[in-house]
């Protein structure tokens, strides 16, 4: 049973959310009785952005609440979608009359719970719309399945739609740009080591000392393929190759690149991965407009990396560069 720096598995989320707000008490607020972080002084007179999901992905989502990004974030139990009543509370707390956009990652649980919350909010006369992020190329996309998972690409939706909302756009415009990001963002990830959910005794999967898992999601679930341990460059070739081929990203495209650590990966290894990603993109003539290296969408202490590309047009570039209070997205 993997050791953790926690007090009580049943209280981790609550205590974590308290700790998040205490780190920035002038900017953030916790809703009483809920694991919800909102901007201090909410609601604001603008379209509000709300996201959330299971906990364990920190800094996602609560860490992205702030000017220029989210207005509110709901932290469900670890890797478990929050319940509709909690999402509904968040919506009510941040709605300033111009409507609320929910940014939902494509998981059955998240989609259903957010949909139920939206129904509740609409019943109270709040204008609510939602987008579903599904950037994970590891999962085959098909009409007959639940489709692709939403992973690290979600951060770009938060940033760009957040900037749009901050600029005073109306709900349909904010939704439109969010959907543009979703259409242009792709991710693939891998794990060297799994993670353990605090309330569980074991990790969700185990890997031998010469095995890695490709195509992992962000909930500790096994990936789509188990292979031998490879060199970092080979792993990056594999991940970034799948991402590039998907849309596909082409010569002359301007992209944002995110090298995302899964929680337990040392920064050293992320920079090493960034090096190879840069080499590949340069070879292909794809221009890196902006690079993000660090932990953005994690899976507790999982060791591994995901690589995200977002193909940018002028509007997205401007919104990506727009000011935000969130340091790691500057």
């Amino acid at each position, binding site marked *: 049973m993997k050791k953790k720096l926690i007090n009580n598995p049943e209280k981790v989320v609550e205590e974590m959310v308290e700790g998040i707000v205490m780190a920035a008490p002038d900017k953030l607020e916790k809703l009483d009785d809920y694991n919800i972080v909102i901007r201090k002084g909410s609601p604001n007179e603008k379209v509000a952005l709300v996201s959330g999901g*299971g906990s364990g992905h920190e800094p996602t989502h609560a860490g992205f609440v702030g000017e220029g990004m989210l207005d509110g974030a709901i932290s*469900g*139990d*670890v*890797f*478990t*979608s*929050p*319940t*509709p*009543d*909690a999402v509904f509370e968040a919506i009510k707390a941040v709605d300033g009359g111009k409507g609320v956009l929910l940014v939902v990652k494509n*998981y*059955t*649980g998240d989609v*259903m*719970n957010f949909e*139920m919350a939206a129904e509740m909010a609409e019943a109270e006369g709040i204008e609510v719309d939602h987008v579903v992020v599904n950037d994970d190329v*590891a*999962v*085959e996309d098909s009409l*007959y*399945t*639940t489709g692709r*998972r939403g992973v690290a690409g979600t951060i770009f939706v938060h940033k760009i739609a957040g900037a749009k909302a901050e600029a005073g756009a109306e709900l349909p415009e904010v939704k439109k740009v969010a959907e543009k990001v979703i259409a242009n963002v792709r991710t693939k990830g891998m794990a060297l080591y799994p993670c353990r*959910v605090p*309330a*569980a005794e*074991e990790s*969700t*999967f185990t890997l031998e000392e010469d095995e890695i898992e490709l195509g992992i*999601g962000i*909930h*500790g*679930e*096994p990936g*789509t393929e188990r292979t031998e341990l490879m060199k970092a460059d080979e792993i990056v070739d594999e991940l970034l190759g799948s991402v590039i081929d998907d849309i596909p990203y082409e010569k002359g495209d301007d992209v944002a690149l995110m090298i995302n650590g899964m929680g337990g990966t040392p920064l050293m290894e992320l920079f090493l991965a960034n090096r190879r990603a840069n080499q590949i993109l340069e070879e292909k003539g794809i221009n890196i407009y902006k690079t993000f290296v660090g932990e953005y969408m994690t899976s507790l202490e999982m060791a591994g990396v995901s690589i995200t590309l977002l193909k940018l047009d002028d509007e997205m570039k401007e919104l990506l560069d727009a000011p935000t209070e969130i340091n790691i997205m500057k």
Partner: protein
Amino acid sequence: MTEKSKKIINEIADVIIENKKYLTKLDSAIGDGDHGINMTKGFKKVKEKMEAKDYENNKELIKTVAMTLISTVGGASGPLYGTAFLNISKIIPDADFDLESIIEIGETAVAGIQKRGKAEAGEKTMLDTIIPAVDALKESKKNGDSVEEALQQCKIKAEEGMKATIDMQATKGRASYLGKRSIGHQDPGATSSYLMIKTVVEELY
């Protein structure tokens, strides 16, 4: 009737809580390893709520169960089971259950789950336990079986349905991300559904 229903719900809750680790283990193989944790949290709360209050009728009782599951379970199973119970609360009679009303309960549960989750039979979900179970009841009715016989068949078919998920490839829910790797494992939601159906059957006859 409410006392009897309360007892059944209590039994369901106990069985789920007892099987917390088992359900979680199943979910670790093809999901994210929380199904037992989620369900236990929900049914513990259900027990608390039921202890604290008396209910006028089955409708009120089951609605409380539904709302409690919806607001505590989270994940995929929370809204699915929650919606199922919410649908049931709308039609549940306060009298003794005859075969017809049991079938109606089953059908409305399936309808709720399908409305929310948009899955069909054969996608390796809880529906693969529940649909065959309801079908068995209908079959029994057509054959003129007794309620006892019908319930017995229902339980058998539920179990068969649950076991049949082992060989299925998931196309809905988290297990679908695994593609072919989902084959060979029993679905956790199908298992919790079986545990519930089994409990109801054993309590009713």
